[in-house]
């Protein structure tokens, strides 16, 4: 269920995988496909999770500051964990009903696709 700043999100495995990918390097900004790659989730499945976390104030996002004409591609949307998210997400993950750590899934290194 969607939450607000006072309540955490439901900690599904997918939510935990996304948070773990973003928390691996909290200062690093990542775009959607990088997050998919780092979390191991299929591309095209994470936007509801990102929207929920962003709505709760755990993530923030902004458009890449490039000229699409010069780059030869559309600009990307970059996501980053907020201070609030960096503080609260690890606690929520530790208290999850099914902690992702229990599944033995290893995080991947976040690489670029382009």
């Amino acid at each position, binding site marked *: 269920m969607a939450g607000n700043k006072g309540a955490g999100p439901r900690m599904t495995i997918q939510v935990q995988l996304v948070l773990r990918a973003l928390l691996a390097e909290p200062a690093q900004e990542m775009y959607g496909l990088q997050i998919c790659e780092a979390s191991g989730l299929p591309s*095209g499945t994470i936007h509801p999770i990102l929207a929920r976390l962003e709505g709760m104030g755990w993530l923030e996002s902004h458009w890449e500051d490039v000229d699409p004409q010069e780059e030869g591609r559309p600009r990307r949307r970059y996501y980053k964990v907020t201070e609030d998210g960096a503080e609260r997400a690890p606690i929520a993950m530790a208290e999850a009903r099914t902690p992702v750590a229990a599944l033995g899934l290893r995080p991947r290194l976040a690489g670029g696709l382009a």
Partner: protein
Amino acid sequence: MSAMSAGLLAENLADAIDWAADAAAYMAVPADAALARAGISRADVNVATRALANAIADARFAATNRALADGRPHARAKASGVLFSHIDRAGAAARTIAGYADRIASGGVLAGNMRSVVRALELARSEAMSLVSVIESAAPAIFPALDSVTVRTVNPAPDRASTMRPGLESMQRRSTAASARRLLKVATRMVPPGDRARYGEEFQSELADIARAEGGRWGQLAYAIRQVMSSVRLRAVLRSPRRRSAVP
């Protein structure tokens, strides 16, 4: 019944399916020693968990089709039947796994998780039935944009939501699959109007990245299909009143 009620039910259904998927993922890694003590082969567990995972994935896809079929009674009825059959398949697989779990002598935690799978699937079925009845009674008000999506897909019109410059758009048209772009327009139309420009551009940006990285039409199509499948959920999240109050 209001459209908001249908939206909440749809989100509850998606949550219930996710919950079942989580529990299935947890069940997929029981200790081999515990399985051996219970006389259960790893292969049997793998078959059952794969069947459950496939049924859940099929149910998720059917739920999206059910939503997209809004306004077309025949398609709606057919999609409802498919959705229920997949949920029933998932329920049968979950009960099989629950039987295995109960046989694992030291598997108290696993058995508990599998019971939660069965409960979640029962909840999913209940939510799906509620969703269908709500949609039947409030169909015209639930997804009013979908009819226009069909028209726009067949006869593409200038998209006011697009913020890309014409030159860049033509450049992207040359590099990405037209079928994937059309599907992404459907996904974008599922998003509330205030968020369409952002997500429309973000989806197309990711499609361009996939085209550059993998190049294949099927990879792009797979991405676009998954985006359409998750668009009902994205719509529900973006329409959440609590989210609106949390994001300026």
